């Protein structure tokens, strides 16, 4: 009898614990749905399928960049050059497209340039023990300079078929969304199901312990930067393709949009914590806030204030739910 009661109690506690765990784990998802409901109540156009598709499409590039930042932030690093490297990779890809007419050559160029810049970031950091903050800031300047020299400051137009990478559709779904989903799934697989992914979390959680356990940390860091650079290069091509031209100045501030998405999505600056689905949700939350403010024609100055407060609020709620007593 008493044994049964205890068992029931146990079961009850288990149920409760499970619910709390769910809440802790998916707090950001609850915020996500709360924003959807509030937005739908505020404006009837918000839930239009085309509008929802617009939000995802507009934020596909930021989501890809945010995947790159998630890997870096989880491993205790950051990339402040992402915006300018994105512009460099995208513009060079457009240049190759205009000169060769080959979409695959353009894609390859963009991704390779991104990867090279990423690897160089990693090299500076591991070889000369530079802080990621400083090394990537230096890279940002160099990438911006090369972009300006290459383009002379004006846009590269006439990219023909390359535009389908950013504007094409597969059935009813825009191609950038499919590319974004592929990158999110790829990042999830790498982070959760490979030894390399385990090292990413280990380095961010406790770098010294990771070194002590025999992991080649420097090589792993270079690989992390290489991988994130490849994502940045791809994002650059997708963005310029969407814009139907190589825009030299369009990368400004994109790295901060991506970092915001990752942090809103629950990635911790302390390293070792974060997952890529949270990042995707974070990117979409920021995107939805932008969208509803535009639909309601809130003036730009107030948009900045509201956006700042909502982002801070979302992160505070997320942290509080995570640290709630279990």
């Amino acid at each position: 009898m008493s044994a049964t009661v205890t068992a029931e109690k146990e079961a009850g506690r288990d149920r409760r614990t499970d619910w709390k765990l769910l809440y802790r784990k998916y707090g950001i998802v609850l915020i996500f749905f709360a924003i959807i409901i509030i937005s739908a109540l505020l404006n009837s156009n918000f839930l239009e399928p085309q509008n929802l598709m617009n939000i995802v499409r507009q934020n596909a590039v930021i989501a890809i960049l945010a995947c790159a930042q998630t890997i870096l932030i989880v491993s205790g690093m950051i990339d402040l050059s992402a915006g300018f490297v994105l512009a460099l990779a995208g513009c060079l890809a457009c240049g190759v497209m205009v000169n060769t007419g080959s979409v695959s050559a353009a894609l390859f160029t963009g991704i390779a340039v991104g990867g090279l810049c990423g690897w160089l970031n990693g090299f500076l950091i591991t070889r000369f023990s530079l802080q990621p903050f400083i090394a990537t800031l230096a890279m940002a300047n160099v990438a911006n300079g090369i972009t300006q020299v290459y383009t002379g400051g004006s846009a590269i137009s006439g990219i023909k078929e390359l535009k389908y990478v950013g504007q094409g559709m597969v059935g009813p779904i825009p191609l950038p969304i499919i590319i974004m989903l592929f990158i999110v799934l790829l990042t999830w697989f790498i982070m959760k199901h490979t030894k390399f992914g385990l090292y990413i979390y280990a380095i961010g959680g406790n770098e010294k312990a990771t070194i002590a356990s025999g992991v080649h940390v420097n090589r792993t860091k270079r690989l992390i930067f290489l991988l994130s650079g490849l994502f940045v290069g791809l994002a650059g091509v997708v963005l310029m393709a969407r814009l139907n031209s190589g825009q030299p100045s369009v990368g400004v501030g994109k790295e901060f949009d991506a970092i915001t998405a990752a942090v809103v999505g629950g990635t911790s600056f302390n390293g070792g914590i974060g997952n890529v689905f949270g990042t995707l949700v974070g990117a979409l939350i920021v995107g939805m806030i932008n969208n509803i403010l535009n639909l309601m024609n809130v003036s730009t100055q107030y948009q900045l204030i509201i956006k700042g407060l909502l982002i801070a609020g979302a992160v505070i709620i997320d942290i509080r739910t995570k640290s709630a007593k279990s």
Partner: protein
Amino acid sequence: MKKRFLSILAFVLVLSALTACSGNNDKAGSEASGANGASPAAADKKPFTIAFDNANDVYAYCVKVREYLKQAAEAEGMKVLVANGAGDVKTQNDQIDNFIVQKADLIASISIDLDGSVPAVENAKAANIPYLSLLTHVNTDGYIYVGSENKQAGEVQGEYLAKVLPQNAKVLYMTGQTNDQQYVDRKAGLTEKLLKARPDVKLLAEQSSDNQKDKGMSLTEDWMQQYPQFDAIISQNDDAALGAVEALKAANRLKGVVVVGIDGSDEALKSIEAGELTMTVFQDAKSQAQAVVDVAKKLRDGEDPKSITDILIPFKAVTKENVSEVK
């Protein structure tokens, strides 16, 4: 070892890219002085040197002005010295001090900073060399201004739209960053010539696109959701206007929507030729450069620099009809 080699290689590449850039500048300078020596037109006139300091060689527009200036000056047998301030007001001021030492007859500079460029003007004044500020103002007096006024760019947009928009037209306005003087001036011009002159025109919404193409595109996508019908998208620059064009094209809604920008960028002119962008406001680099040379001619003929008034070069509307004239 291999990795070290790779990294050195990479740095050499980056360095060569950078030095290639500055190498060009040196070449440009020596070309200019060489051309002067060979110019036959200069024979009967006093030698005259214009020292030109660019704000930053990375801006396509500034480079265009510099090249037009060299052409126009050399046609008059004048010598042109060039320097690149590279966006740094201190660098530019030092370069202008060098021009003073070289005893230039006129210093023409795209002054980088409203306040930071004051010493350059003062130093030139102290050395009795006329200072001409091109495109930008400086927070002092005693210089000659040549440029175009942002308010007028907004007015040209407004006048054009007031003419072409139908009765009770609905318009959308995408602006630059709202903390920028350019935003205030261009908006004032548009308000005066469109919204005040045509009270029937309704402004549905005003939002910032930061003058960026991607934000202009996203904003237009959002607007198309909210406003089933509108007649015009007015942008404070060409990049964002072209973003609007991309979004409208993708949604098959470009037809019947007037899209206007400001700048006259190459991409915008191409788009106007293709019948997509309706109109842009062209800033006339050639006339601006010619105005500098006109000032130089007056000085060479012995006119008192104090009597030379500022020269405003008007913006002009460019549509499909006259796009071939400005290309």
